[in-house]
């Protein structure tokens, strides 16, 4: 019998494996972009481990290649990461009462995919806590680093993710996770407000997509807060 924390770590690692394929494809694409920005394998690998936020890494490097300058690249990357505030805030229970270094480690490993998997597992009534998040996060990080370093090394021989339909991998994964988070009729109004509000903001090009996600999440949560329980 494994100790409980090891068991949770391996469960996280197992559950994240279908997503690792999508992460690997994006890692390759990111490596390709980073190679164009003149980054070395070491720099790309270090960025994956230290920043560990795929979409913000992609946008920061894209801004660099566009000649936007260091400040613009950093601001664009950080703006995309503001949603991580809501992500770690929403799983506050797993950080409670831990020593500071475990809080830092667990916060660093929190990303969209393993956070959503943790919630989905809980929605099925199964246990998922700190080590589940870290296990799934470690799987994501290793995959992300290896794939992006490989992307730099084989920059000339890689097809675009779009050509394989792999750009839709995350959309499909989030749709599956959305399904498992459905708690019943009380979710209907907040979810509808989030979905319609975000779609309107994006389609009318009112604000950038990364802000629309944050606003959509907050407005939906606000609607949920003012509704009394049935």
């Amino acid at each position, binding site marked *: 019998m494994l100790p409980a924390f090891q068991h949770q770590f391996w469960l996280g690692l197992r559950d994240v494996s*279908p*997503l690792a394929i999508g992460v690997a494809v994006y890692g390759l694409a990111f490596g390709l972009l980073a190679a164009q*920005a003149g980054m070395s394998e070491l*720099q790309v690998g270090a*960025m994956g481990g230290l*920043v*560990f*936020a795929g979409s*913000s890494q992609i946008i*920061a490097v894209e801004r*660099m290649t566009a*000649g936007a*300058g*260091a400040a613009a*690249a*950093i601001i664009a*990357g*950080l703006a995309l*990461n503001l949603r*991580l505030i*809501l992500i*770690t*805030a*929403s*799983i*506050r229970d797993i950080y409670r009462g831990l020593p500071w270094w475990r*809080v830092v480690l667990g*916060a660093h490993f929190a990303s969209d995919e393993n*956070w959503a998997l943790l919630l989905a597992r809980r929605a099925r009534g199964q246990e998922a806590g700190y080590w589940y998040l870290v296990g799934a996060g470690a799987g994501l990080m290793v995959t992300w680093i290896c794939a992006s370093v490989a992307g730099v090394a084989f920059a000339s021989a890689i097809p675009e993710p779009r050509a394989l*339909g792999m750009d839709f*991998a995350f959309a*499909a*994964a*989030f*749709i*599956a*996770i*959305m*399904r*498992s988070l459905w708690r019943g009729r009380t*979710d209907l109004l*907040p*979810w509808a407000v*989030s*979905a319609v509000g*975000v*779609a309107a903001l*994006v*389609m009318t090009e009112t604000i950038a997509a990364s802000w*629309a*996600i944050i606003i*959509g*999440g*907050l407005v*939906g*949560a606000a609607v*949920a*807060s*003012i*509704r009394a329980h049935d």
Partner: protein
Amino acid sequence: MTEMTTDPTLIILVLAAGTLSVRLLGVVIGQGLPTEGAWARALNALPGCLIVSLVSVILASGGRREWIAGAIALGVAIPTRSLPLTMIAGIAAIWTLRHFGIAA
């Protein structure tokens, strides 16, 4: 004008420090909020609303094909609740629509 040179190492380090701060800020905010009442209801509803927003952004910035593939993926997700099956259905659908030039 000389070509703009940006040192990737500097950008990596600043972005890494900033991103970790953002993640930790969420932990701090989360611990400070009460566990009952309106705030707790909002925080409990937040994950679902964020995921819905994420899906909505992806679909709204895509075209008709993304909407169709999204509907097919949802059609698989609702009865099966399966992550791998939903991913396979969604990717197969978008690939088929693009490859055969359907619903451009």
